[in-house]
């Protein structure tokens, strides 16, 4: 019995810092005041459960989102759009990266002088992704997404262009042309 209790405590002690590591600090003081548009999404596990109840089962897109959201512990998004270029400090990207521990691995890094720089980091536990951070830095926009919990990246990418919203990447293809 004592052995079971000790192993339970050890498991919990290991799990708690892991969960805490997956959620990063997305507090950027003063940035919202300078931005023209701000998106601030904070959904913890309980809010995600509530949201799942309201996602339609009949709508395939909403069902896909609901399937993705089930099992997640949190979704946190901060997106700031500025009127002019250079209104935010690019070192914010490094500030976010510096919070990522040793279990976080860079999945994709896209660098562009004129367009979007995107960094995708995954919290890997063996083969499993248990957390995701997406940092997108554009000349006039800075976006950070933090997903806490098991994530299927391909499914996440396939969600774009749904909900009646045009694909952003299609627009960027036109820009390239």
């Amino acid at each position, binding site marked *: 019995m004592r052995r079971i209790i000790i192993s339970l405590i050890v498991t919990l002690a290991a799990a708690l810092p892991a969960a805490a590591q997956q959620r990063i600090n997305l507090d950027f003081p003063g940035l919202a005041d300078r931005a023209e548009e701000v*998106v601030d*999404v904070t*959904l913890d596990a309980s*809010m*995600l459960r*509530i*949201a799942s*109840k*309201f*996602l339609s089962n009949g709508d395939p897109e*909403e069902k896909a*989102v609901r399937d*993705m*959201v089930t099992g997640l512990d949190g*979704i946190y*998004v901060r*997106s700031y759009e500025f009127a002019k270029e250079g209104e935010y400090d690019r070192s914010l990207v490094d500030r976010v990266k510096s919070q990522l521990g040793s279990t976080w691995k860079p999945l*994709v890094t*896209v660098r562009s002088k004129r367009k*979007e720089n*995107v960094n*995708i980091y995954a919290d890997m536990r063996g083969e499993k992704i248990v957390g*995701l951070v*997406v940092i*997108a830095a554009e000349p006039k926009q800075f*976006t950070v*997404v933090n*997903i806490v919990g098991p994530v299927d*990246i391909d499914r*996440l*990418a*396939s*969600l*774009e*262009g*749904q*909900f009646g*919203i045009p*694909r*952003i*990447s299609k627009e*960027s*293809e036109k820009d390239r042309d």
Partner: protein
Amino acid sequence: MNLERELQRALRRESPAPGLAARVLARAQAEAEEPRIAHPRRHWWRAAAASLTLAAVLGGWAAHQVAERREGERAREQVLLAMRIAGSKVRYAQEQVRGIGTEQK
């Protein structure tokens, strides 16, 4: 002797005032009827109090449902927005990687 006479006077039998029996009977009847009038009144108040309590409970429950629904709808919209933003960024990165792969071929 005086004491004896005073006692006799005090304890002598006196006949009741006329109409006393009728008054006593009338009062007794009135008292007997009084509770019958009071009960329906008490019931009415109880019913009113119960109705008010029920209305308050139902009203509170309905308000809670409305608030919960509003919160749920807000959470739903936020989830869809968050997934759209996350999805667009991940897809953009994937397309850039695939683009490099295609150019290399």
